[in-house]
């Protein structure tokens, strides 16, 4: 509690200072500097979201700043529209550009987006510099000042409030977003798409959303920039500036919202000093500061990849989540299949990788309330079968039906929506999210809050229900006391349990567990076995890939044994144990 009060107090003092600053006899120079820092921070915020959180990046943010700036300059100089309207025109144009680039590149590997933004940033900058109606290299002069209810924001001191008001509002909107349903989906993007898609997250859509958000922030900064400088020309929107924006985010701390402000401040202040000192040192004029920036960028990535903010953050009291969801109503539950109903029907499923037949016409069925074990020696094709069933890999031939619906060519996202959920052999948790948040990601499809609602914090009622559900699943699996720990700090065994809780949070009808007992201690295994039996009693069906024979034998109703991609035998644990064929597969034959 004390920590929380200290945090609130620190925030309060910071804002009072910010409010008073322009009224104090601070030299005009510093007000101007602070305005620039605010403008840069708005752009860097977008890059924090894009690079630090979602694991994408863009070198073309300056071009989006340029779209915002040129749009308002052109429209207000010709008195077509009020600047309070042109900001939205700028945003609309920016969105169109960002959606186009995002749509083209974000389906492919992560490096195509930054490459596209380099080219696009260059092309747009040349366009600005060569269009007659944009004033070519001279740009557009005489952009009017903003007016707010007849208060002219023509002074740095008055515009300060608007710039910093927007910067701080954007920072809080992003903080809200990151702590929400869409925010968790966005934070899952960096770890690759397989897990997020299996939880029902449309990774492509969220990547586009993040890129568009970052572009919109840049565009708003550009709008402010035009009315602050009262003139626009192509040079501040070139690729050099685009790279500098990224540099700010990286130096400040690309993983944290406040890193954007730190980076903007440090880079702006250092750049000014360098631009004075370096030419004197060299004895010629020129932008020598790029040498320092370039070297600093490499060094920061090498020695302090989290940037400067963590050094500040460790001196601040840590944020603790208040537990306010105890009375939240439970999330809706889907209709479950009746006991004994056919849930999963795998018919002659086949997967070939080139000439290798990894899964050779394997068939089996799972009925509601059954636990089926899938066992076999290493390389038998168990995990491939698993990936075929869950839609991670496409079938070469054969059919898979889930609750009567063919899912041969369905995406793993669609399969998740139908009520099949899974864990991963190589645990896929988001290391820098708490255990509770990781499990809440499982509830993604059971809630509906969108990005905008989350940013405005209108999602709290639903958020409480999600967190309540996550906590309930952790309780069930015996992990509740770890809910506020970072998932990356857990040992492998508990991490597997968290994955099961996350899968349960999707409210599945069929649970696919890939080696859930690996890395667990005996006690934990017994507890897990108890949970799985309880789930079975509730009517859930489970498909289990496992190496631990005691665990499988004691738990399952039936076992499918695979060897070299082919189904060897299917039967009760007793039948399998008695089978000479199985013994031969595991231990070899006697001659």
């Amino acid at each position, binding site marked *: 509690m004390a920590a929380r009060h200290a945090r609130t107090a620190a925030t309060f003092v910071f804002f009072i200072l910010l409010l008073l600053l322009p009224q104090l006899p601070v030299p005009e120079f510093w007000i101007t500097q602070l305005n620039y820092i605010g403008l840069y921070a708005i752009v860097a915020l977008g890059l924090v979201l894009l690079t630090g959180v979602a694991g994408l990046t863009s070198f073309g943010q300056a071009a989006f700043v340029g779209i915002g700036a040129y749009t308002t300059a052109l429209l207000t100089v010709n008195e077509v529209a009020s600047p309070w309207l042109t900001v939205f025109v700028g945003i609309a144009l920016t969105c169109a550009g960002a959606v186009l680039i995002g749509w083209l590149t974000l389906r492919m590997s992560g490096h195509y987006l930054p490459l596209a933004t380099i080219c*696009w940033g260059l092309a747009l900058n040349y366009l600005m510099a060569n269009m007659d109606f944009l004033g070519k290299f001279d740009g557009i002069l005489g952009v009017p000042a903003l007016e707010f209810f007849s208060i002219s924001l023509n002074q740095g001191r008055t515009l300060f409030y608007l710039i910093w008001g927007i910067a701080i509002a954007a920072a809080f909107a992003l903080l809200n977003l990151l702590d929400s349903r869409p925010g968790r989906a966005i934070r899952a993007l960096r770890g690759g798409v397989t897990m997020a898609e299996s939880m029902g997250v449309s990774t492509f859509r969220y990547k586009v959303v993040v890129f568009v958000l970052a572009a919109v922030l840049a565009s708003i900064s550009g709008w402010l920039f035009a009315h602050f400088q009262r003139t626009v020309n192509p040079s501040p929107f070139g690729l050099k500036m685009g790279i500098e924006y990224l*540099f700010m985010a990286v130096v400040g701390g690309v993983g944290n919202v406040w890193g954007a402000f730190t980076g903007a401040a440090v880079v702006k202040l250092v750049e000014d000093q360098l631009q004075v000192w370096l030419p004197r040192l060299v004895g010629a004029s020129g932008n020598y500061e790029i040498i320092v920036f370039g070297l600093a960028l490499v060094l920061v*990535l090498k020695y302090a990849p989290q940037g400067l903010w963590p050094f500040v953050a460790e001196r601040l009291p840590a944020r603790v989540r208040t537990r306010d969801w105890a009375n939240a109503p439970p999330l809706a539950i889907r209709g479950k299949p009746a006991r004994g109903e056919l849930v999963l029907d795998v018919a002659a499923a086949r997967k070939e990788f080139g000439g290798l037949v990894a899964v050779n016409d394997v068939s089996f069925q799972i009925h509601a309330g059954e636990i089926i074990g899938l066992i076999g020696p290493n390389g038998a094709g168990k995990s491939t079968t698993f990936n075929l069933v869950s839609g991670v890999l496409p079938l070469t031939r054969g059919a898979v039906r889930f609750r009567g619906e063919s899912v041969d060519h369905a995406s793993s996202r669609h399969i998740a929506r139908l009520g099949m959920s899974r864990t991963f052999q190589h645990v896929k948790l988001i290391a820098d999210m708490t255990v509770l948040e990781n499990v809440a990601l499982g509830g993604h499809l059971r809630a509906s809050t969108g990005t905008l609602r989350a940013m405005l914090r209108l999602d709290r009622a639903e958020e409480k229900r999600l967190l309540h559900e996550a906590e309930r699943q952790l309780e069930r699996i015996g992990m509740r006391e770890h809910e506020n720990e970072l998932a990356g700090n857990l040992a492998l065994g508990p991490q597997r349990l968290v994955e099961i809780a996350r899968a349960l949070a999707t409210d599945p009808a069929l649970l696919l567990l890939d080696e859930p007992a690996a890395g667990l201690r005996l006690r934990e295994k017994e507890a897990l076995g108890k949970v799985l039996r309880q789930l079975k009693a509730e009517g859930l069906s489970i498909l289990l890939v496992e190496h631990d024979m005691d665990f499988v034998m004691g738990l399952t109703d039936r076992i499918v044994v695979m060897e070299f991609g082919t189904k060897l035998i299917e039967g009760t644990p007793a039948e399998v144990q008695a089978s000479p064929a199985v013994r031969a597969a595991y231990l070899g034959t006697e001659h």
Partner: protein
Amino acid sequence: MDFSIASILLLDGVTNGAVYALLAMATVLLFAVTRVIFIPQGEFVAFGALTVGMFQAGQVPGTVWLLLAMAIAVAVLDTFAQLRRGVALARVARNVLLVLALPVVVCTFSWWIAPSKPPLLLSALLTLLLVTPMGALVYRLGYQSLADASVLVLLIVSVGVHFALTGFGLLFFGAEGFRTPPFWDARFSAGPLTFSGQTLIIFFASAALIVLLWLFFERTLYGKALRATAVNRLGARLMGISSTAAGALSFTMAAFIGALSGLLIGPTTTVFYDSGFLIGLKGFVAAVFAGLASYPAAAVGALGVGILESFGSFWASAFKEVIVFTAILPVLLWRSLRDHHVDEE
């Protein structure tokens, strides 16, 4: 536009495209072996052209100081790293000597001979000797310790290296541009076309380099080691192929290709310290066309970029860069329709 103009533009485009092809292949090579998207490839081009230019002007080229500075930085870093690992002093001294020997010899000779305006061929040779070692040094300074970082981090490092190298270019070469004399100033006519000697040299050198690269990858152990690293770094390491050595070798090759490209385009245009970026980036568009994966596709893409550029500058000269760089959008559309797999990192 009539046939003769079209054929002149085509020749012009193919000539530039041949240089872009070299750069695109260097990009593909580096990405395959080290996963580095090497934005500063063009800087080597500018360094190459400027070095020859300064030799011809009787000045000591800036590359001399840059190479020395980089070699000393690497020597210092290596010394510290090896001493910390407890390597014997004699061995450390020998390793440092190995790093410094070639740069010091080449730099001293260049510094000595530069005022007497060495002949063009000697200048060209010295240029290659000055720029090529920079590849491995850049790798050592910028990338080696980050070899296991994600493609994204390596890409951001590349941008940092691009900034630093451009700034050093300004520092060591100054803001003045250079245009070098052609290696062969003969002219040949064929119908409406006039081939200059330099054009022929560009075609010949590009073709020769492509063939050499092919032979290197197909016929030599080192080439196969690089290919193995490109397919699977860990697997190659288990086979005794050092991924550090593979990285240094491929960066050396990239620097060589860059310097050679600089020699080839030096006589066709005035090169400034920051001209390399745009040239390199055009090679890049071609490499993206090839999905950063296929050498032949990169070469085809590069010819396309060159032709697009020459026709673009004929129709709308102010917008030629806009046209070339906007062309990446349809290329990306085509690629995303062709293979829209997303890899796991």
